[in-house]
């Protein structure tokens, strides 16, 4: 059984690097070398790190270091976790260096959200190549427990099993085993929905665009945050990197849904990357008196304007039912309301279920993994739980055939995809919010 006492986190000053260091130092009770370009930055990251798990006591486990110390840190470590920027060349350089010092029997892993694990494994000398894995956690990991675990063809599968056990039982991660395919599972499903929402915003720009689409895919549709707001939160550069990677390296029935809309590229070119730069798809303005005003990028006009508070009758009715805990009635409204907005919303949810299960079948090893990734990586109502919410009130297969476009119904065997009656371990009621 793996129980790493000493761990090196490379790129520890980034948000993810600091937060992952905290997971190792807290639940893992390991000594963690936090390596970044600048030791002072590593020190600051250690403080952030302890705050992320609300435990000052773990700072005793966090040791600030810089790249000049990398070889020594790696040599003394039982596990090395790379959390550098999502850039293949940079990661190749780092893993080549780590490979020069990695102990026999120690674990090396990358936190990459979707680069090739096999390619990175090849940075290691033959004798330690089998010790390398993909361990993709979601941000913030203290709140989101998802961890996608990926082996390469070179991996030592006994070590893989031990690593899975460590991640599950010591670090309390929800481990989703994924094949080494672009963006793995969670992001492939999640960013499909988010990018399609961005495409829809462009298509419906005369109706308002971004805030129009977000308003009809709000928390009442089984998530905490609407999908375009999520893209803004993630950062448009990160969003682009993920969807471009999937577009270039995969080819399934939703291939063109991973094309980044032009207006998003324009915002990226203007360095309007989202929440982290103060403006992107949305822009929060605080005036001198402290009042906040949410602006949104109007695709048609090419300017920021006040966010519109849409009141769609179907959404109002759904929220009213959800407020009283009448989930079946809320779903019935969604199915039976004839407005354009209810139709867009319903079809988004149905397409999400279909693509999540399709992806789980192709990228995962077990269909249930679709639930784990969406519930614990995105806090979206996971597909099997959502299926349960629908099947309580309708024939879901028939609904999909009736409402989804022929290109989906013809590309995917609907009866097969929803045929497996798997009882979700997640409760759909938690995810459909009255907001």
């Amino acid at each position: 059984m793996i129980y790493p006492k000493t761990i090196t986190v490379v790129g520890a000053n980034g948000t993810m690097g600091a937060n992952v260091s905290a997971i190792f130092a807290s639940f893992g009770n390991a000594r963690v070398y936090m390596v970044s370009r600048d030791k002072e930055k590593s020190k600051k990251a250690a403080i952030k790190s302890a705050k992320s798990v609300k435990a000052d006591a773990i700072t005793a486990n966090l040791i600030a270091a810089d790249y000049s110390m990398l070889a020594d840190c790696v040599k003394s470590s039982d596990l090395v976790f790379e959390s550098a920027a999502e850039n293949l060349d940079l990661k190749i350089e780092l893993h080549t260096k780590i490979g020069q010092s990695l102990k026999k029997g120690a674990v090396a892993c990358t936190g990459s959200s979707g680069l090739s694990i096999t390619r990175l494994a090849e940075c290691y000398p033959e004798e330690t190549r089998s010790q390398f894995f993909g361990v993709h956690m979601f941000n913030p990991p203290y709140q989101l427990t998802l961890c996608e675990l990926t082996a390469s063809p070179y991996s030592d599968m006994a070590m893989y099993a031990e690593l899975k056990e460590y991640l599950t039982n010591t670090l309390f991660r929800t481990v989703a085993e994924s094949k080494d395919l672009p963006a793995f599972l969670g992001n492939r499903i999640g960013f499909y929905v988010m990018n399609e929402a961005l495409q829809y915003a462009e298509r419906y720009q005369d109706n308002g665009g971004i805030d129009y689409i977000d308003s009809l895919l709000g928390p009442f549709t089984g998530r905490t945050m609407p999908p375009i707001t999520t893209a803004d939160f993630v950062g448009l550069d990160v969003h682009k990197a993920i969807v471009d990677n999937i577009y270039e390296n995969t080819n399934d029935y939703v291939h063109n849904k991973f094309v980044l809309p032009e207006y998003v590229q324009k915002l990226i070119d203007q360095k309007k990357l989202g929440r982290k730069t103060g403006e992107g798809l949305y822009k929060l303005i605080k005036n001198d008196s402290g009042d906040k005003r949410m602006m949104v990028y109007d695709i048609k006009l090419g300017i920021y304007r006040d966010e519109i508070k849409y009141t769609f009758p179907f959404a109002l009715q759904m929220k009213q039912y959800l407020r009283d805990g009448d989930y079946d009635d809320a779903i019935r409204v969604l199915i039976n309301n004839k407005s354009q907005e209810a139709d867009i919303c319903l079809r988004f949810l149905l397409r999400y279920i279909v693509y999540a299960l399709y992806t789980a079948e192709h990228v995962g090893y077990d269909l249930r993994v679709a639930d784990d990734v969406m519930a614990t990586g995105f806090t979206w109502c996971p597909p099997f739980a959502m299926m349960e919410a629908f099947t309580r009130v309708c024939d879901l297969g028939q609904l999909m055939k009736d409402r989804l476009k022929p290109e989906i119904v013809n590309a995917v065997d609907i009866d097969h995809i929803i045929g497996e009656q798997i009882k979700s371990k997640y409760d759909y009621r938690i995810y459909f919010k009255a907001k």
Partner: protein
Amino acid sequence: MEKKVYIMGGAQTDFERNWTKEGKNMIALLKEAVEDGFKDAGFTMDEMVRLNKENRVAAFVGNFIAEQYISQGHLGAFLTEVNPAFYGVPSARYEAACASSSVALDAAITKIEAGEYDVCIVVGWEIMKSVDSKKGGDILGRAAYYEKEGKGVDLPFPKLFGRLADATIEKYGLDKDRYLNALAKISCINYANAKRNPLAQTRKWFMSYEEATHRGTESNPNVGGLLGVSDCSQVTDGAAVVVLCSEKYLKEKGLKDLAFVKGYGHRTAPLLFDKKIADNANSEYVLPWTRQACLDAYKRAGLTVDDIDVFETHDCFSSSEFAAISAFGIAEPGKECEAIENGVIAFEGAKPINPSGGLIGCGHPVGASGARMFVDLYKQVTGKAGRYQVKGAKNGMMLNIGGSATTNYVFIVGKA
């Protein structure tokens, strides 16, 4: 107890949830809890309607203080909003601060014992995340003598249970550090147990012995005398439902192997904390009336501590769990530290306390906590506790307290 009262089943909501953030109201909370509780018990709305025609079913609602949290009273009547099947079913609200749902349980059990009803539904609930922590702390002050112990005091309850810590150290002449380390261990056990409970509030949270003994820091500030945040249970939203039935109903339906109520104890200690502590001068116990409630339950059940395989206690603070250890009879009064240090109360120990995580780990929606403990005992003695199942548990005992250990309720449940 003379007539057996059987436990058909029960359920609790996910204590991690914040219903205000979800935009949902008390009706949604009650609907989900009742639906899940009925499902577990194999009881239906149609069956309730049938029984109600003959006046054989009643409902008992435990809630502390919804008047303050969500401006709502007349809580017994709200089940009629859950489902029309409740129309005409006798129902009322019962209150004893954090022991509210135990009073509701007691009333339900008594009605069945008396032969008045054949099925009784107990619902304990509280919505607390509707207000901020300062306001919430003030509201909870009404579980003490508000005018004398709560009004104008910032977080009155951590302070009262901090005083219980002081009183315990003083009464037994304990080494302060050893005592505080034992309290830290109690917190750690509860947090660790909660990791196995899929409905526990803190199941994703981190706690370690280092952090729990690291009191007085930014992440673990002192909140009441010697106690740090790590010594406190956290308020949350939640509900728990229990469905009880009579022997007559059991036979009528051919139900088999149900757990039943073996005994109870109910004692009320002096309300004011100073009087409570002054009152223990002639007792070996720091909380003599809590001990007496346990003794009463043992006597009614014809059992001793040796017969009990699993305990759920009211660890609103680690100092109250400490006092419960001797009240249960797991250790001699003043010798609680040994039971903690030797692993007796740990999950794998001889007398595991709070395999659910307790109030510290599972969460404390005050009006729901008694019913939640009762549901957990039922799960344990029927082998339904999943990953937090105590192997081979036959008898379980719970202690639910209201105020500063003022109202003391104990139940013992088990199988034949």
